[in-house]
């Protein structure tokens, strides 16, 4: 992954290159230098116990949290940071907004905009951020809603949908941006058990389509089937990583082995 491993075909370009991300909250150092390079079409599963910094890592990539150190490159474009008062801050907020629009995020709590209809949820960022005209935004939104199987809900409001439907709408909202990389933060953790599969199915389809995705998840079966690469975070560092089947069968780290036996029982 990081660097050019022998198994990684050289000709596939790196989509997202994240280097040595560090982040502390007060005196609590949550990320101690985490790197990851996702090639196009990679599906990277990020695992770790609760509080290990998975969400923080994902949020440092699109700068919802400002990292204390490290670099993020999307298709080679570095997010420029500068020092201010001993802290790192974005050098150009316009660039950050532009990069964010190329990286879609799907949240654990869906975070749909409650006052907008389902259709409006999926068109808003297309119109206001990408500058698409309403007509093409609506066409795109309808296609994406159909793709995740909630086209019939276009005139409803988020509060009228089940959790699984809301999360599928959130995925449609992400897809409508034609993102280069998609970030998922535990997309099924807030769902009732019987609704998990409808969301995982959509995500499997996306993986099969060759979308580049970073997925924080506790769904081990899904991670093993769908991911091309797996990362295990522990105490702010990458404790283990590799192709899912290999490292799940033969964990290099004792911690990861314990984590696996804990989550599989």
């Amino acid at each position: 992954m990081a660097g050019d491993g022998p198994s990684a075909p050289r000709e596939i370009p790196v989509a997202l290159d994240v280097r040595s991300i560090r982040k502390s909250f007060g005196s609590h150092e949550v990320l101690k230098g985490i790197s990851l390079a996702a090639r196009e079409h990679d599906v990277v599963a990020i695992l770790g116990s609760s509080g290990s910094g998975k969400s923080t890592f994902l949020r440092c990539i699109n700068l919802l949290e400002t990292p204390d150190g490290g670099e993020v490159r999307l298709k080679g474009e570095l997010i420029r940071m500068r020092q201010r008062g001993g802290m790192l801050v974005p050098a150009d907020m316009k660039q950050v907004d532009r990069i964010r629009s190329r990286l879609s995020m799907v949240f654990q709590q869906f975070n749909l905009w409650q006052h907008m209809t389902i259709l409006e949820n999926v068109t808003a960022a297309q119109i206001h951020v990408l500058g698409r005209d309403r007509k093409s935004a609506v066409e795109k939104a309808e296609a994406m809603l159909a793709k995740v199987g909630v086209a019939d809900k276009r005139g409803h409001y988020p509060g009228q949908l089940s959790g699984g439907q809301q999360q599928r709408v959130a995925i449609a909202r992400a897809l409508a941006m034609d993102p280069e990389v998609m970030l998922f933060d535990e997309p099924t953790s807030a769902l009732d058990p019987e609704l998990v599969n409808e969301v995982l199915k959509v995500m499997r389809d996306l993986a099969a389509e060759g979308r580049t995705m970073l997925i924080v998840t506790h769904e081990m079966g899904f991670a093993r089937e769908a991911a091309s690469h797996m990362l295990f975070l522990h105490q702010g560092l990458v404790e283990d990583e590799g192709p899912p089947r290999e490292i799940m069968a033969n964990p290099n780290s004792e911690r990861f082995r314990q984590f696996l036996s804990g989550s599989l029982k």
Partner: protein
Amino acid sequence: MEDLVAYLPLLIQGLRLTLLLAVSTMLLGLVLGMLLALAKLSRHGWLARSAFVFTNFMRGIPEFLVLLMIYFGGTQVLDTALGPGVVNVSPWIAGLTALTLVFAAYASETIRGAYQSVPKGQIEAARAYGFSAWQAFRIVQLPQIWRLALPGIGNLWQGSLKDTALVSIVGLDDLMRKANQAAQTTRAPFTFYMAAALIFLVLTLLSMAIFTRLEKRASKSDRRT
């Protein structure tokens, strides 16, 4: 009855000023109330504290006193500063300022509550999709703040519509003052106070109906099916 017909144009003149004052108060009060609410929510402690002190002051003293302080107190201050009679505080300016400050003080609490009720995750989602801070505020927060604050603002509007009557004391030619004048010249106070009361009643009932419709429209997203 003939008196009433004769004085009706006068009353209508007054009514126009009353409505103008009430509407201006609400618009200015909403803008100032929003700014005060943002100040209270700001990270800068001194800004938040000043906003709280200001609103507690405005809410803690009688509105009538605020008006007198601005009208007579303001004149006194300006006279001392610039010489007697150079600049005068007109009844209109005094009335508008007093009503707006009080409206804004109350509105800021309503708006602050509404602001805090919009889940932070929705703002994060907007930022994560590339909305600027201003876009996230305008497109995601503001409509939801509006929806949540609307009932409270409706009440404030009713209150300040009726409180415009206070401004007649300092000589603004509003509905109340016109009714008073008519009552005195015709010696028929009952007729004219009753007429003024009915006009206020019609206005408040009408605005209640308008606010109810606005609330219905703004809370479409609450409907469950």
